[in-house]
């Protein structure tokens, strides 16, 4: 009796499990995920779904060549993962600090301006890709950088082994 039933019961169980588990595990961009640090005074901001989506597109188009997956291909020491951003001087782990970087990039210790070496609005003559970015665009890109680790964890900025 039990021997006969075990097969069908198992099948049903697995089928039910996939049915129930999939929607729950699928990553949704809910409000909490879209809420990120705005500045170092502890204020936060919630991106709209549209902004988050736009941030992703812009990031991939303007920054992805070097920063794909949150790493920095051309200097892996300085990544876009939360830890790297937090240990920068000044800390770059907020929307405002990231927008500031896109206007005036500096070395990791904040001692030198590197607008000639890093794309930004300061030198659109040598980085024409940056020309069409509006203030809203910078905000969306910054938001994307801070949202990603909340979705992908260590995969954001973790490097090749986590792709």
């Amino acid at each position, binding site marked *: 009796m039990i021997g006969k039933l075990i097969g069908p019961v198992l099948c049903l169980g697995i089928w039910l499990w996939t049915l129930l588990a999939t929607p729950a595990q699928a990553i949704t961009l809910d409000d909490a995920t879209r809420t990120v640090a705005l500045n170092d005074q502890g204020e936060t901001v919630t991106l709209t779904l549209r902004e988050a989506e736009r941030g992703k597109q812009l990031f991939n188009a303007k920054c992805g060549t070097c920063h794909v997956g949150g790493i920095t291909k051309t200097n*892996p020491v300085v990544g876009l993962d939360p830890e790297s951003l937090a240990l920068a001087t000044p800390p770059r782990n907020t929307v405002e600090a990231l927008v500031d970087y896109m206007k005036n990039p500096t070395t*990791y210790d904040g001692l030198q301006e590197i607008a000639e070496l890093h794309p930004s609005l300061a030198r659109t003559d040598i980085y024409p890709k940056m020309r069409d970015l509006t203030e809203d665009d910078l905000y969306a890109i910054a938001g994307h950088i801070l949202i990603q680790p909340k979705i992908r964890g260590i995969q954001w900025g973790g490097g090749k*082994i986590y792709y």
Partner: protein
Amino acid sequence: MSKMQSWWRWISLGCCLLVGILGFWGGPPALAAEPINKMDAKLASPFGQKLDLNNTNVNGFSRYPGLYPTLARLIVANAPYGKVEDVLAIPNLTERQKEVLKANLDNFAVTEPEVMLGWDRINNGIYR
């Protein structure tokens, strides 16, 4: 069975026993002391825990804010140091840089410069 064969059997048995006993009592003494290579020994020194001014590579200094890359480069270029405080004597430091260094004295250590590190002193190729 011939007499020759049984004699041969006893000899081989004796040999086996002898080798076994010798092996048991006279085994290699090497394992008596915990084996440790030179690099493990170095890692067990402060080099393994703190930023070793004489040995830590440039990227390693990104662990604490304000040190990478400018001060890290200066520190490596002006090594070796006899004691941690000697780092403040690097020529032409700005006031700001001196402050950052002073705030980090506790994160620094000084051990013998290790030749074995070779280029790893500059970049050990481990980024993550």
